[in-house]
């Protein structure tokens, strides 16, 4: 059969998925440990051998190979802007939406101390913003100079006040900084414009970062490592919601991805107020929004989860819990490969995953605030109103492998006890049972119509 090989060079495992291109089915998958320290292709070859063995009866011929990667720490970035709640925040959202890990967000003029901090963190790419178009100039120019003098080996995406482009170009050319200048992430107050910056980040990832992480051997073999893995999941969510050239999308949706180290929420929705008389305030949020909660995870971040979430909240999800929460979370954080062996251990995992879903969703969605005025009570909304979202999709080990994923996803729904958080009220619940989101997001770059059809076939409706 004609097939496409989709590769995910993960931080721990290199995962392969074979897709029958004509019948639009996933036919095989395999995995092996990622070997980025030596030669990334060793891990790939191991996984490939396993796949060939598993599917030797299927007569697979690969016409194309595409890859995404979160190996070698993934795409690490630093975001720099002017005012913390405005351009610094817009830059952070642009970087998150490109699938990166944010190491730090900086505001106002950079100090030498902050420069040392950034040097220490070793980001792969810097996103530099500041000033609306035609607005403040001094800050971004100062920061460009600081970067050129002290961080000139780090590629920079410049997405700030367009009126400073000429000067910044001159500063960077002089010091040999690798840079791309794109549209402002916040061209006008509160108006966000993250897509140009995201495209530039992805471009630099493909051109420079892949090579820098010792993965150019892989590139020779495959048709390019196209994106950081988180960007693939986001891409899948986006095409599923919006549709493609030939296929209909399913409408506004939210994806919950509960992992060992983080819980990620992706929402594809405008998030406009759903009820009359609500004032929208604050910085506009991106249509495609990704948040990453690095303190909420099933293993690596289990301990920080136990610190972020009060025990009484976890007990609400599992009233008969047998374990001491802090103790067990500490244990799990030290034993990241632990799988539950019995009902009690499974119950514990489910309880903390429900807590992770609840809190991560709360941090992601918008909120309504009561404002008391002489004219009566008014409601002001900050962030996205996701109450009317049509689909809530779950992915990640715990959701894929547990018997009752519905219960976990429901922990992320609108809650009368905390009505100010605009969480989804009654979406259809779907599970990514076959781990298709990231590979289809990758495949969609070249084969969008097929990818969305395969996605629709593989998302299991829980109701």
């Amino acid at each position, binding site marked *: 059969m004609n097939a496409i090989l989709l590769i995910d060079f993960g931080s721990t495992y290199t995962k392969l998925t074979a897709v029958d291109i004509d019948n639009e089915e996933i036919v095989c998958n395999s995995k092996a440990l990622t070997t980025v320290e030596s030669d990334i292709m060793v891990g790939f070859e191991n996984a490939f051998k396993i796949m060939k063995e598993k599917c030797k009866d299927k007569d697979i011929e690969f016409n194309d190979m595409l890859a995404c990667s979160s190996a070698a720490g993934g795409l690490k970035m630093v975001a720099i802007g*002017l*005012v913390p*709640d*405005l*351009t610094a925040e817009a830059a952070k959202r642009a970087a998150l939406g490109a699938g990166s890990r944010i190491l730090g967000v900086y505001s106002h003029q950079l100090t030498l101390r902050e420069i040392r901090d950034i040097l220490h963190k070793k980001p792969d790419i810097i996103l530099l913003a*500041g*000033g*609306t178009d*035609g*607005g*403040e*100039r001094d800050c971004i120019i100062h920061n460009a100079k600081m970067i050129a003098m002290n961080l000139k080996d780090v590629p920079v995406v410049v997405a700030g006040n367009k009126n400073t482009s000429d000067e910044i170009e001159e500063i960077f050319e002089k010091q040999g900084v690798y840079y791309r200048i794109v549209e402002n992430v*916040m061209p*006008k*107050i*509160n108006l966000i414009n993250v897509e140009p910056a995201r495209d530039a980040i992805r471009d630099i990832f493909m051109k420079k970062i892949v090579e820098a992480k010792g993965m150019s051997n892989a590139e020779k073999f495959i048709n390019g490592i196209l994106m950081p893995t988180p960007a693939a999941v986001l891409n899948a969510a986006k095409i599923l919601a919006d549709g493609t050239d030939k296929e209909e999308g399913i409408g506004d949706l939210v994806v919950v991805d509960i992992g060992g180290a983080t819980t990620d929420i992706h929402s594809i929705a405008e998030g406009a107020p759903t009820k009359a008389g609500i*004032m929208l*305030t604050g910085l506009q949020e991106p249509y495609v929004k990704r948040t990453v909660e690095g303190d909420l995870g099933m293993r690596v971040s289990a301990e920080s989860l136990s610190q972020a979430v009060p025990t009484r909240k976890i007990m609400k999800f599992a009233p008969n819990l047998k374990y001491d929460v802090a103790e067990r979370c500490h244990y799990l954080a030290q034993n990241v490969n632990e799988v539950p062996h019995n009902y009690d251990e499974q119950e514990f995992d489910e309880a903390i995953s429900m807590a992770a879903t609840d809190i991560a969703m709360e941090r992601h969605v918008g909120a309504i605030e009561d*404002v*008391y*005025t*002489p*004219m009566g009570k*008014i409601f*002001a909304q900050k962030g996205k109103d996701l109450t009317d979202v049509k689909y809530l999709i779950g992915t990640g080990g715990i959701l894929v492998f547990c018997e009752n994923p519905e219960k976990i996803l429901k922990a992320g729904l609108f809650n009368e006890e905390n009505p100010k958080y605009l969480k989804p009220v009654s979406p259809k619940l779907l599970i990514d049972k076959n781990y298709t989101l990231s590979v289809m997001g990758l495949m969609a770059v070249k084969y969008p119509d097929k990818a969305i059809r395969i996605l629709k076939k593989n998302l299991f409706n829980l109701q």
Partner: protein
Amino acid sequence: MKKNVVLGVIGADCHAVGNKILDYAFTQAGFEVTNIGVLSSQEDFINAAIETGASAILISSLYGHGEIDCRGLREKCEESGLKNILLYAGGNLVVGKQDWEPVEKRFKDMGFNRVYAPGTSPEMGIKDLKQDLSLL
């Protein structure tokens, strides 16, 4: 290049019509207006002024509680690196009928450069702004 000004209605006040009129008038007069709208806090004005490199902040208050909403703004501007920014206030700045001169003085003491009584036309504010920015 056009001069940037930030315009908005301060505090828990959502009177919007005058705000729209001022937006239109100042834009027609050649200013680059960043209208942050109603229900704006002091921080909203300041953040917008910083990002847009504004020369002036024009504050409207219609519900009578403007004085308390505006208190401390000049100091915050100084803290935020906007030491020399022009601060204008207008609308219905106090509750009930009071003599204008003491009201004007209280606002000027708070650091406002120009203070306008109810019923002032936009043209007056525009003329004053052009003068203060040496544009006339």
